[in-house]
């Protein structure tokens, strides 16, 4: 039997040039949230690999802190996560208080909690706005910044600054609440609760939003823990971990609030988790204002802050995740012997290459948005 299709000649297959396309995304790019630089290796538009290059905003804050005195460092912490300066202040001050064994008055604790939650709202508003804008919903960005403006007004009324607050002192607070401030905060909480409904109408059930965020950048709970994910992204992967509940600080122990947890660990879940945190934050703020105790806002603090020799680590839940401070004091000098920050943005950013692998360029910007980084904190 003869072969009906005899092979008469072997054709050499056409050789295509199949190099990977290497593109440089950032440090100047509309959606790298500052000065993040990604080196993407693309196959078509599919990301084969990504390299994260950081350090463009490095100011040496940690080293700088080792030659500043203990009160001046509060100012430097403002400049790390400049979208959530108040939380950084809180983390630092609590660490020093822990090192010195200081008692902070209860009223100060309550006010600190209110400020921290207001800051969480402001930071999440910036996140939601920029995340939605990266995916193309520009209008959400302007809506979110409109509400954030109200938080900034509240902060301005409290401490005079709108971005870098310097709003805590070791042992307490610089000032008591202005008259009528709590009423304004309540009004703001009502506004935010209303506006969240607006955002949800624009995005949550939006077909395009669902298709752009569902199953994008999925990470399992185990992987998330292994890679040091923290904050809302970690909780979106189904891991119940929130420093506010696990190791309560400030006055969080005294309030009832829920920790939203996701299941799928994709971009959509991270969105839902943060959206739910808005509601929990206003809930905490209302409780704190209702139960606000009377009393001083500054504890008994020595004139010269000079912690005893020793070292300590203390973490709090910043809007981005777990921000921890490791401070060592030699007990002699007026500045820390060693100062080191565990920045949530940095730890979350290292997961980015894993998240973007296999996705398209359009998803890369969605994924940068979803892990909510601030380069000031990544680079310090």
């Amino acid at each position, binding site marked *: 039997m003869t072969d009906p299709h005899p092979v008469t000649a072997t054709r050499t297959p056409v050789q295509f040039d199949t190099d990977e396309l290497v*593109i440089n995304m950032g440090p100047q790019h509309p959606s790298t949230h500052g000065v993040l630089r990604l080196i993407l290796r693309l196959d078509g538009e599919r990301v084969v690999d990504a390299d994260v290059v950081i350090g463009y905003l490095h100011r040496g804050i940690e080293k700088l802190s080792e030659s500043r005195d203990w009160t001046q460092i509060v100012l430097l912490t403002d400049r790390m996560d400049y979208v959530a300066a108040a939380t950084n202040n809180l983390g630092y001050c609590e660490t020093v208080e822990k090192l010195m064994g200081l008692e902070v008055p209860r009223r100060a604790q309550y006010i600190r909690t209110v400020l921290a939650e207001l800051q969480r709202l402001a930071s999440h508003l910036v996140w939601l706005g920029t995340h939605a804008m990266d995916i*193309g919903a520009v*209008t959400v960005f302007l809506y979110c910044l409109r509400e954030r403006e109200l938080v900034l007004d509240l902060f301005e009324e409290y401490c005079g600054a709108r971005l870098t607050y310097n709003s805590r002192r070791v042992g307490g607070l610089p000032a008591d609440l202005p008259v009528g401030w709590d009423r304004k905060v309540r009004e703001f909480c009502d506004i935010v609760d209303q506006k969240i409904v607006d955002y949800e109408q624009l995005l949550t059930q939006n077909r395009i939003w669902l298709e752009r965020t569902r199953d994008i950048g999925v990470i399992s709970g185990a992987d998330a823990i292994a890679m040091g994910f923290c904050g809302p992204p970690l909780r979106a992967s189904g891991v119940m971990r929130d420093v506010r509940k696990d190791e309560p600080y400030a006055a969080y122990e005294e309030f009832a609030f829920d920790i939203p947890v996701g299941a799928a660990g994709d971009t959509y879940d991270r969105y839902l988790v943060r959206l739910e945190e808005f509601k929990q934050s206003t809930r905490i703020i209302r409780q704190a204002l209702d139960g606000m105790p009377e009393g001083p806002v500054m504890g008994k603090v020595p004139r010269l802050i000079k912690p005893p020799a020793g070292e300590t680590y203390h973490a709090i839940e910043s809007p981005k995740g777990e921000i921890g401070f490791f401070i060592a004091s030699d007990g002699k000098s007026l500045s820390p012997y060693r100062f080191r920050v565990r920045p949530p943005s940095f730890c979350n950013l290292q997961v980015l290459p894993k998240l973007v692998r296999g996705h398209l360029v*359009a998803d890369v910007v969605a994924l940068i948005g979803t892990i909510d980084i601030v380069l000031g904190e990544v680079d310090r």
Partner: protein
Amino acid sequence: MDLVYIAHIGVILFTFFMLLNSAAVLVLMERKVAAFLQQRLGPNRTGPWGTLQPVADILKLLFKEELRPLAADRWLFALAPILSVTAAFSAFAVVPWGGTTTLFGLLPEPVPLRVADVNVGILVLFAITSMGIYGIVLAGWSSNSKYSLLGGLRSSAQMISYELSYGLALGAVLLLGNSLSLTDIVNQQSGYWFGVIPRWFIFIQPLGFVIYMIAGIAETNRAPFDFPEAEQELVAGYHTEYSSFRFALFFLAEYVNMVTVSAVATTLFLGGWHGPFLPEWLGWLWWLAKLFALLFFYIWMRWTLPRYRYDQLMHFGWKVLLPVAVINLLLTAAAVLYWG
């Protein structure tokens, strides 16, 4: 006879001039509508209510330095914006924007308000609007920049995913109108059913209209389908490397394309210049009203929706839009056979 000839040329020049102006009006409209949707004021410093903003924009663009990357393909780089804008303008030529006019009795015979009544108007339209994509592809390729290249590639991927449905939606109207001339199709939409409902094709072709508008948005690269320029992803996509007047041409082409697509939708589905209440010679007012309603819809979409991903558009185009368009065409054909 001479007077009619001059009137014809006058209409052509007027159409061209107004098309240029429409881009300026649209720029202002886009910024004002966007501002309104976002609770801002929008441009309000240049002239009353910011009306001179387009003039300021254009002047600014003209006075910018013309930059061309050294590695760019010199001729194609120059050709691409011209191709884009030419396609955008010439497609409009077959769209009638009003009935006929004698200019209040000045002209011995009525002059139709359109540039040309081609008897294969729809085909011309389809052919020329598809050309516009070459401007974008060439711009992306000739810039010799990676972001531009990705933008150009996206636009070709985008084109193959909507063009078929676009053609099939037009085909259904063609069956109804039984003509390829746009003027004929408009004239068939005059009058009323049961004395109240205008005989616009949108009422018998609602599906066709929706398909046409979706494909039209993709055709003009507007959000949510603005992948070739997606500024959050590709910086500015195909026109990343363009500046000054060449950029202005792309800008112009985008807006004129919007006008053309909306004008064709008005012509094919919304009865062109026909409408109740107004006398025949004011029909162009109806035409303008319908056109701007559609343009407002365009802008509204852009500032409300997030952006699709281009592979999702391809899925959508091939798996949803195309089957629906085919079914729509077959149903229309059956209905025309049965009742027509």
